[in-house]
């Protein structure tokens, strides 16, 4: 019997926290996972998995009216030695390893792409330099599929950068061999009109370590669905996220960690700042500990900082535990408001207004940024946060 627990902590007048009613991850979806878009009804917006998403702004990705254009996105992959980069057709079996699409847009992406990229890191290769994947929007519609596969005991860092303007639906798979270590940084630094919907599937081998860092700044609608499952015991996943949602933007991060195997760990920490009218951030954190997953240790956290009136946060942590034989499980969600009293307090100590805001936001993100463990990425994030704050003043 699945058990749902929701322990929200704190809410504010400007932001709000929505807490799902008792439910299970499986029954909340309107259709079972499938590679075929025809297996999913066109969503109308009331479904649990779509109820926060502005369907009208998805530019047809959800109802089949979005059609790939020649000038969709340009993908450039820069890889150091020890890495194989291939462009493959639809029938390549490696494209179906990590997981199935769980909603209609992911299935649409799988049903619509023509060529996929497969990046393979040879077993035991330890890369000195990151693999860099630049996804640059050219203003059109695109469906993508990328696979990054690490052989046993390989170690790699992948930085995926999304820039420009596009309507993009994609699946990105990460397949980790036994003992492999992969850090993936996915930066959504889109222009303001971009629409980006993607599912990330990570499948971890025995004792593999996976670290995902999702950073979302730009776009009109960004909806990402990072998912982790384990093919053998001993895997460890860290999922970090940072978003800065501006006026009118919709940024949605839906996570699922499926503890289907014993003695694996997961740690999820997402933090977001919001500012401006109709800035909307959605965070769904699903953790499922299946009956077989004894010895699981998991924690998930979401924190939001609402900087101005008019922004909205929906934060839904959901932990389902089917075995009592676990090492630990917990979650926390809180939305706080940067309010006029804080501003007054800091300014009453001589600190100018812009600096006061910066101080609070930088402090809010600092702890998370430090956990990323990649100095150049950390610096870039801090600089980006500063730029967002500058732009708002």
């Amino acid at each position: 019997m699945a058990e749902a627990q929701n322990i929200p902590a704190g809410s504010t007048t400007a932001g709000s926290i929505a807490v799902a009613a008792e439910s299970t991850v499986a029954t909340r979806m309107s259709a079972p996972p499938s590679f075929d878009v025809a297996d999913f009804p066109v969503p109308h917006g009331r479904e649990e998995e779509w109820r926060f998403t502005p369907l009208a702004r998805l530019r047809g990705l959800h109802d089949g009216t979005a059609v790939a254009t020649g000038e969709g996105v340009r993908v450039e992959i820069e890889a150091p030695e020890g890495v194989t980069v291939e462009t493959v057709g639809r029938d390549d079996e490696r494209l179906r390893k990590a997981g199935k699409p769980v909603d209609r847009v992911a299935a649409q992406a799988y049903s619509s792409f023509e060529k996929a990229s497969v990046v393979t890191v040879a077993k035991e290769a330890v890369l000195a330099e990151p693999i860099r994947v630049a996804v640059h929007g050219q203003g059109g519609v695109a469906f993508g599929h990328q696979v990054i596969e690490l052989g046993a005991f390989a170690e790699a860092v992948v930085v995926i950068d999304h820039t420009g303007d596009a309507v993009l639906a994609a699946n990105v798979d990460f397949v980790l061999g036994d003992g492999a270590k992969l850090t993936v940084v996915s930066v959504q630094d889109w222009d303001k009109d971009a629409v980006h919907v993607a599912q990330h599937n990570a499948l971890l081998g025995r004792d593999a370590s996976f670290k995902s860092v999702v950073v979302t700044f730009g776009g009109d609608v960004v909806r990402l669905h990072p998912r982790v499952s384990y093919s053998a015991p001993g895997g460890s996943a860290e999922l970090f996220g940072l978003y800065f949602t501006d006026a009118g933007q919709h940024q949605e991060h839906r996570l699922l960690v499926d503890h289907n195997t014993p003695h694996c760990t997961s740690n999820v920490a997402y933090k977001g700042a919001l500012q401006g009218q109709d800035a909307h951030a959605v965070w769904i954190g699903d953790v499922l500990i299946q009956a077989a997953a004894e010895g699981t240790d998991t924690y998930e956290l979401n924190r939001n900082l609402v900087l101005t009136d008019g922004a909205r946060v929906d934060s839904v942590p959901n932990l389902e535990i089917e075995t009592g034989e676990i090492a630990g499980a917990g979650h926390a969600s809180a939305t706080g408001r940067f309010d006029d009293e804080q501003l007054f307090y800091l300014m009453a100590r001589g600190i100018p207004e812009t600096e006061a805001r910066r101080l609070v936001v930088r402090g809010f993100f600092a702890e998370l940024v430090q956990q990323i463990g990649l100095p150049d990425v950390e610096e870039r994030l801090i600089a980006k946060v500063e730029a967002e704050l500058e732009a708002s003043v």
Partner: protein
Amino acid sequence: MATLEIHDLHVSVDAENGPREILKGVDLTIKQGETHAVMGPNGSGKSTLAYSLAGHPKYTVTGGTVTLDGEDVLEMSVDERARAGVFLAMQYPVEVPGVSVSNFLRTSATAIRGEAPKLRTWVKEVREAMEKLSMDPAFAERNVNEGFSGGEKKRHEILQLELLKPRIAILDETDSGLDVDALRIVSEGVNRVRETGEVGTLLITHYTRILRYIKPDFVHVFANGRIVESGGAELADQLENEGYDKYVKGGASA
């Protein structure tokens, strides 16, 4: 010599049924080196005076002037007032999540002094100031006012007072909610700053208790939005014995 001059100050706040006047013509002059105690019953407008001087946006000045050495304080933004030398130790200090005390203090000192304090001397300065206020060094790594006890919040306010060295210090009910030990420690901090002779102090309080530790040069009775009587320290003794009754009644009938 720094002088804060408050003349015929009128202040109102927005209430449900329109603006409500709280300060009804306050006159007060505070010179560097002087300590003025403003005492009055709850609801008399004492805290409004404190927050208005610091520039809290909730309060609207509808008349009168406030100058610091001739400069128009009311024209200044909140941060400009602080940099000009006006410091408000708040009755209810605000939590600032994600900002450590040490980062906050340094940012604030940098803003007030116009340049970043030298790191080595700064660390020592903060450590010594904290020691004098019997504050645990670990305190510096906590987030500003987050989870602080009432006594910790007030010590933190006085720590800032000592580090920022204002010309005019407004202490808004700094004594409220403190036990005797904390009151003594906090008062000693205020006295260290006063003894420099470089600060004019406006001590706002409901009770005479703190005046046993901090001796005022002047005592003003505040009632119904203005100063109704002024005198020396002996006026506090009179209030101790007689309470505010006669002022409240007088204010109501005026």
